[in-house]
């Protein structure tokens, strides 16, 4: 393929390509074009959102996941979406979503102690939607249960607007003593990058790249990622053991754009360069090219940075846990990333060029649908009694035990308030009297009608859920699920939504510790309802918590509020 066409096939725009040439002072070669296409993708580069995300009241910058403190502990938490993979392959999509978010929390040195899921599907009566729904729930169950992290709360909505584009947002909460928090920042040059985990295959190499290169026959759909919860469980235990070894300096999970993004970001954050030797990477398939190895999103892999001499200890731990191990490179003085394969230099360029994707922010104005909506006054002539039964029968209101009983919500023996018993769940910090309250909420319809107030309300709803169980809100993580950001209406909804969340967090004095953006949630003409999802954690004194069951006959019921 002609070089100048490759970048277009990979989804880079002309002006971006010009920018790349400017940054490099030359044309990028083939491998480099792939590297840019991945790092500058919406997923890694946050091109459409990074300008606006700056508005959120953050308490931590630039780590794998954020945290809040409860006494001597850091409660690490983050939410992430796996919407598109779940639409293609519901079981594996959801399973690998769990795997990914667990590794984000793990990379902070925290033991994962809880999962939450926020799910949206089409009409449950439609066989396709039902299929996706059942697959997603069993994927979360299959993976989450196996790795021994309880899924303790969530929410589930059915609505036509998510018919072909379901939302699968999963959140992980972890616990670590606050002076043991791990960092992803490389502190010095000449330290070794150690790869631990499953082998690298061709899975999850981005669709865009694939369309241009590989697809030759109908049987080739190699981009589906399959989760291996056994390796993940081993990786959790191995990582926690490794982080206790003196001389282990930093770590990061290999998520989107795998080896490339983890190694470049770790080096960049520390202000160093790095050198990678791709032939050292443990491979699952034959004949993988340099760009495939760099971009592969094979699951269950972590990257550590260690003092030379310490790597042997990691090798032993890897062996103990049936994991692959390799030293694949090192940090170096300077600002460049150097990629070698079989001794041949494939690329040598400044890391900041890779990490610093251009911003696509633009101003937008109120779209016309908002005016239209204001004219519509919803009316209903259903008699009150029938309305009540209709509501109770609605799958959105009905009991969700079919879902949460498939989740092991008790493993870890910390779940003090279990799903179905209250609006939030509470996890015990053992050997103390403290608990961590957790909840996850979203409301696409309200946000569609009024993106600012709708989003502000979601934060308040999460806070109310916590407070109702006796938990004081401490921090927020957000997952922004929106349509195509190149569309002005979507961009406006997004901006309004960020402002609504920002306002609510300031009003409640809770920081945003991190989050995730998922754009392009549409298929055909139709975008999903704009759906910001809010995960919130807080602190509880276990002597003062409350569930929602009525306790005794003849107790009085009060209604408080306006």
């Amino acid at each position, binding site marked *: 393929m002609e070089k100048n066409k490759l970048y277009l096939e990979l989804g880079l725009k002309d002006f971006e390509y010009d920018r790349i040439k400017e940054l490099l002072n030359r044309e990028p070669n083939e491998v480099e074009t792939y590297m840019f296409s991945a790092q500058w993708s919406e997923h890694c580069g946050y091109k459409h959102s990074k300008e606006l995300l700056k508005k959120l009241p953050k308490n931590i910058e630039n780590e794998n996941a954020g945290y809040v403190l409860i006494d001597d502990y850091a409660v690490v938490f983050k939410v992430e979406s796996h919407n598109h993979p779940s639409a293609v392959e519901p079981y594996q999509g959801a399973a690998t979503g769990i795997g990914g978010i667990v590794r984000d929390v793990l990379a902070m040195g925290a033991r994962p102690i809880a999962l939450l899921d926020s799910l949206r599907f089409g009409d449950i009566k439609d066989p396709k939607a039902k299929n996706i729904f059942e697959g997603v729930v069993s994927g979360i169950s299959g993976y989450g249960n196996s790795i021994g992290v309880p899924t303790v709360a969530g929410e589930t909505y059915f609505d036509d607007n998510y018919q072909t584009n379901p939302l699968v947002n999963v959140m992980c909460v972890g616990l670590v003593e606050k002076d043991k928090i791990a960092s992803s920042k490389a502190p010095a040059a000449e330290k070794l990058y150690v790869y631990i985990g499953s082998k690298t295959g061709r899975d999850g190499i981005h669709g865009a790249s694939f369309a241009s290169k590989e697809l030759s026959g109908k*049987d080739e*759909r*190699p981009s*589906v*990622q399959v989760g*291996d919860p056994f390796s993940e469980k081993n990786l959790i235990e191995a990582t926690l053991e490794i982080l206790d070894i003196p001389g282990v300096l930093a770590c990061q999970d290999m998520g989107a754009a795998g080896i490339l993004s983890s190694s470049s970001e770790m080096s960049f954050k520390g202000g160093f360069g790095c050198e990678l030797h791709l032939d050292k990477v443990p491979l699952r398939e034959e004949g993988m090219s340099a760009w495939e190895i760099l971009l592969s999103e*094979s*699951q269950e892999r972590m990257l550590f940075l260690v003092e030379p001499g310490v790597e042997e200890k990691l090798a032993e731990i890897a062996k103990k846990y049936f994991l692959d191990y390799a030293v694949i490179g090192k940090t170096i003085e300077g600002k460049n990333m150097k990629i070698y394969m079989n001794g041949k230099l494939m690329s040598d360029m400044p890391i900041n060029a890779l990490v610093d994707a251009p911003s696509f922010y633009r101003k937008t104005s109120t779209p016309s649908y908002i005016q239209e909506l204001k004219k519509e006054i919803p009316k209903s002539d259903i008699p009150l009694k029938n309305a009540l039964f209709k509501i109770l029968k609605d799958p959105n209101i009905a009991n969700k035990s079919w879902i949460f009983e498939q989740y092991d919500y008790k493993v870890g023996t910390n779940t003090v308030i279990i799903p179905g018993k209250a609006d939030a769940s509470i996890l015990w910090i053992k050997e103390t009297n403290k608990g961590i309250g957790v909840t996850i909420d979203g409301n696409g319809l309200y946000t569609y009608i009024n993106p600012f107030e709708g989003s502000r309300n979601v934060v308040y709803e999460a806070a109310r859920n916590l407070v109702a169980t006796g938990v004081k809100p401490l921090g927020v993580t957000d997952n922004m699920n929106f349509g195509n950001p190149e569309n002005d209406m979507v961009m406006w909804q997004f901006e309004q939504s960020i402002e609504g969340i920002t306002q609510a967090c300031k009003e409640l004095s809770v920081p945003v510790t991190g989050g995730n953006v998922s754009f392009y949630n549409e298929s055909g003409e139709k975008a999903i309802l704009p759906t910001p999802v809010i995960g919130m954690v807080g602190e509880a004194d276990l002597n003062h918590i409350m569930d929602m069951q009525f306790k005794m006959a003849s107790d009085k019921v009060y209604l408080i509020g306006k």
Partner: protein
Amino acid sequence: MKIYRFEALITLKNGILDPQGAATQKVLKRLNYKIDNVRFGKLITFDLEAENEEDAKKIAEEITYNSLINPVLENYELKLLETRELEK
């Protein structure tokens, strides 16, 4: 009408990770077996009632492709094992 017994052999596509196969292989290697390429698949047998073999095969293909396999991850091979008269 006759009864046709089919066997669907369902295997993972090349390049798709097989965590079960990989873990089983690791354990067997530790037991010193010289084993490699352990891959897990499914074997599903079923009986179909149909007018003739051609029809039966068509329906079996349809069932296998639409309901038994996951075309994103799996390949299949369908075998007609036996034919017998429908007992009344």
